[in-house]
């Protein structure tokens, strides 16, 4: 489904690569977790795959569509849920979703039905006509997710979709993503929650300093790492315990 070949990204005025010569193949129907410490290059990779950043070198294709030649088709095919809420605070949940759905070219009656269904699944029906600025962090995260899946994308990129939310909201989001995956959406997501990734992902890749250090099924990686009981043990063994602060 996704074929990444020697993908690199070096930002202006930096002397290092945020993503360097990255090769990866993600199959259709996978839930693929990109794990890594802060500044490892996860968001940069997701941004390039979502057509938000131009790669410095290398290429990738999604569903056999090359990123540089099929921009419009790719955008219709993929969905992106950014780390920021990326919603209009003074508009209601429904107004926000109607707008973002319209930007995918979805017409009103079908769009409204889909929105109603997603809101119901994620427990937000009664807040549909409430302004986003009155929502809690967890509620905003759920609306943020709906805004990225209204057009039923084949591939969904999520950048830390459960960061800063309570357990209930996280469960609701993960359950909804599992449901989408069941219906055929390939999911690529980044997270700092190792337990969540261990339980949720079919495969993960641990990225550090812009390169994939290790990849595979979570259980297999745990078994291969001596003394590891959870994915977090594997993660710390590979990336170390030193703090990763970037200014």
């Amino acid at each position: 489904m996704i074929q990444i070949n020697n993908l690199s990204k070096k930002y202006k005025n930096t002397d290092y690569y945020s993503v360097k010569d990255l090769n990866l193949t993600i199959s259709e129907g996978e839930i693929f977790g990109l794990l890594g410490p802060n500044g490892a290059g996860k968001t940069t990779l997701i941004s390039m795959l979502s057509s938000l950043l131009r790669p410095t070198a290398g290429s990738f294709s999604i569903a056999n569509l090359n990123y540089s030649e099929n921009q419009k088709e790719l955008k219709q095919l993929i969905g992106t849920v950014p780390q920021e809420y990326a919603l209009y605070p003074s508009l209601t949940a429904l107004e926000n979703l109607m707008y973002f759905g319209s930007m995918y070219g979805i017409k009103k009656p079908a769009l409204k039905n889909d929105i109603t269904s997603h809101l119901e699944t994620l427990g937000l029906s009664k807040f549909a006509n409430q302004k986003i600025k009155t929502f809690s962090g967890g509620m905003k995260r759920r609306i943020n997710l709906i805004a990225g899946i209204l057009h039923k994308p084949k591939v969904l990129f999520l950048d830390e979709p459960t960061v800063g939310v309570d357990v209930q909201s996280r469960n609701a989001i993960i359950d909804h993503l599992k449901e989408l995956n069941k219906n055929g959406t390939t999911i690529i997501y980044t997270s700092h929650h190792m337990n969540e990734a261990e339980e949720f992902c079919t495969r993960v890749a641990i990225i550090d300093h812009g390169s994939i250090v290790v990849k595979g099924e979570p259980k297999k990686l745990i078994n291969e790492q001596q003394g590891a009981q959870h994915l977090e043990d594997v993660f710390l063994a590979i990336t170390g315990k030193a703090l990763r602060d970037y200014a």
Partner: protein
Amino acid sequence: MHKLLASAYKEFLLLTRDIGGLAVLFFMPLLLVIVITTVQDGTFKTIKQNKVSIILVDNDKGEVSKTILENLKTSEMFNISEQSNENQAQELIQNGKYQLAIVIPENLSDDLNLKIAENVSGILEKFGVDEGELSAEKSNIKAKEVKLYFDPATQFSFRNSIKSGINQMVSKIETKTIYKAFQEEISEDPYEEIFDTESFISFKEIIPNSGKQAMIPNSTQHNIPAWSLFAIFFIILPLSINMVKEKNQGTFVRLRTHPVAYATVLGGKALVFLVVSLVQFALMLLVGIYLFPLIGLPQLDVSGRLPLLFVVAFFAGLAAVGLGLLLGTIAKSQEQTAPFGATFVVILAAIGGVWVPVFAMPKLMQTLSNLSPMNWGLNAFYDVFLRNVGFVEILPEIGLLTLFFIATTLIAIIYYKRKNAV
């Protein structure tokens, strides 16, 4: 089309949700036009009705100073206070209590009469008319100086018009004295009228109207178009701030992952803000027509011009929106857009002739004014408001405004594409 309308609807919602911002957007331009017109109308009245406070220091106490005083009184432009001390008058002017002090020198009447009598006698002697008398030796009379002290706060134009008025008055007195001297020399009867001392040449002020309905320009007729245009261009501020806000909220980034052209996003904004500028203009007209007469200002006359006025407002709004879209695309923060946008509009207004007419500007600024979209808009408004022209005559100006919109929007799109190329 569906995406464009959805974008426009979203912009409409964002705008109407910010009631405070919306009120400011409509109320401030109205306040601006009311204040400016009242001030300018007041300046006009200051000269015609309100009277300027002046001091007259009469060191002459003669015929000339009496005539000057009478003329000043007859003009009904001044409140005259007589002082005997020049230093005291100077102090009062310096303190800003009075705007002008006229100091008439000692013996002005006597010396003027003497000087003219001498000159007249000399001339008549040359012609042999004054044969009986011996030519007296020339007295050594020095030229007299009427001093004018101005309040430093008075404007250059005010000082110039006063100087020119006084000059005219003194010339008239001199001329009359010359005639009188001739009359006294030639005629035995002092009451015999040999010369007609009234001015032979007079002026008549006419506003050409090419056979169409005449329009007498007043402060309202001048101010509404100028300040409406200023307000229309101020739309670049809320528009660019709106775009920067979207960048900061992350919604712009989200939109970049959607299959929607940047031109469509800009189109939605352009539609709504264009309507806002037209509503603003309509409110300005309503204020000029209905509110101004109630507060003692001249009424705005739009009879027969309404459709053309809205045509000009539409294209001026288009140019302003284009500029706002460009600024919003380039700017990264509200700290960049707000001061730059506000200052830039003021600069465009200044070189566009909103404050000082273009013809009164230095040559370089006159050339620069040709590049200001506000100048094109203002010329089109004046063409419609004051020169009573038709659609064809304003085509060059609205053509330039349209080109400006196309150019700024295209630059915004190209900049965005280059900046965000993947």
